[in-house]
């Protein structure tokens, strides 16, 4: 497991024993899991190794019809949730704002993460739902509807407040040496990173809720979901293609 994964998993476990916080696997996913991002669930869910989500590169706002309130983003480069949607920025209530991650697993003593939660404010979301319908012709939605995919919206994230470099304190989390790997013919295949720099504003863990679409353009994000719920009503699914895949 990479050191970054070590950190995000430890954080998810520390903040949320209830297990509905999902840790980010890679720094490459940095931009994929912002509040209101649309994601797809990757696999059959099991608690034992957790659900994982795949980046769609779209946000909920991308698939809504343009609307005046909250104002339409014109410059996605300078996208600001605060201005647009009154996304609630709040410090952690039940856990300290600064969370020390895993002294015991070989991280150095100075390895602390300053984090904050960003969550979508329920009132702002409700207003958005009332004011902006889905853009039914959006190619992404069309594709997802055709494929019968379920879509999830990132509702809450925990992100870093400061750039931080985490380093192992001399002891790797594994107790075997690289020469041992050479013996196994796996030389060069193991990349033990001794440190990782996590930039400011990097999402580490996130929480999602399922997007439900009723008819062509009505949407909602229910508080309680279960596995039998489908984002798209199956009866609206167009004729299924009959293809044969060979593995």
């Amino acid at each position, binding site marked *: *497991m990479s050191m970054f994964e070590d950190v995000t998993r430890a954080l998810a476990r520390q903040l949320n024993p209830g297990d509905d916080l999902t840790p980010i696997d890679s720094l490459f996913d940095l931009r994929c899991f912002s509040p209101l991002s649309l994601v797809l669930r990757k696999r059959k869910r099991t608690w*034992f190794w*957790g659900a994982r989500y795949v980046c769609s590169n779209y946000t909920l706002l991308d698939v809504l019809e343009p609307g005046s309130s909250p104002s339409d983003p014109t410059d996605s480069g300078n996208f600001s949730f605060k201005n647009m949607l009154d996304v609630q920025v709040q410090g952690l209530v039940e856990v300290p704002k600064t969370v020390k991650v895993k002294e015991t697993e070989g991280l150095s003593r100075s390895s602390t993460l300053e984090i904050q939660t960003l969550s979508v404010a329920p009132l702002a979301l409700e207003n958005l739902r009332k004011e902006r319908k889905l853009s039914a012709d959006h190619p992404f939605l069309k594709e997802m509807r055709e494929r019968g995919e379920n879509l999830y919206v990132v509702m809450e994230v925990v992100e870093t407040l400061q750039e931080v470099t985490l380093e192992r304190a001399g002891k790797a989390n*594994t107790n075997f040496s690289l020469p041992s790997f050479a013996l*196994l013919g*796996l030389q060069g295949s193991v990349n033990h990173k001794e440190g990782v720099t996590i930039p400011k504003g990097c999402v580490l863990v996130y929480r999602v809720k399922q997007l439900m679409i009723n008819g062509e353009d009505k949407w909602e994000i229910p508080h309680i979901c279960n596995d039998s719920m489908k984002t798209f009503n199956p009866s609206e699914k167009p004729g299924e293609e009959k293809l044969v895949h*060979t593995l």
Partner: protein
Amino acid sequence: TVPLGEMHKDFKTLKKEVQRETQEVEKLSPVGQSSLLTSLSHLLGKKKELQDLEQKLEGALRKGQEVTLEAHPKDALLSNDTMVAILYFLGALTELSEEQQKLLVKSLEKKILPVQLKLVENILEQNFLQDKEGVFPLQPDLLSSLGEEELILTEALVGLSGLEVQRSGPQYTWNPDTRHNLCALYAGLSLLHLLSRES
């Protein structure tokens, strides 16, 4: 699927869950199982390709498309339940690092999967509900059948989950953060063990 919040989370539940899914894979014909093992052996260690397969299979399942495994003399058609079970195991295998996946292939070649499965099962059985770190004794006979190279391989496999196995003792340090990865390793080992039994 039991809603996450309501599930009783212990090793017994995991064991049952894995058993249920292996039973589905077991329904595949022997040639189908052998073909699946060959495919997996080629894909393990290539996380991206394994994830692509996972996505393709999920897509096919959702669209009701047929999926067959190339096999001789006849391709094996996968039932929906078998596809779901394969997806379950692909989920577990992609949870492992590429290095762990490569070590699984090596272990397969060396036919030491049963020992490794027993080891991981034993560790999880003893510690699953432990939320604190601690040093635990390792049953001495668990690894006694392994030669030096196999021992290194096995130590590396669980070591990459974050679990430190010490030969002097022998013992290991349990770390609750390793639980997810060890559960995935347990499932992955169970599948590969099942598929390699005949060969």
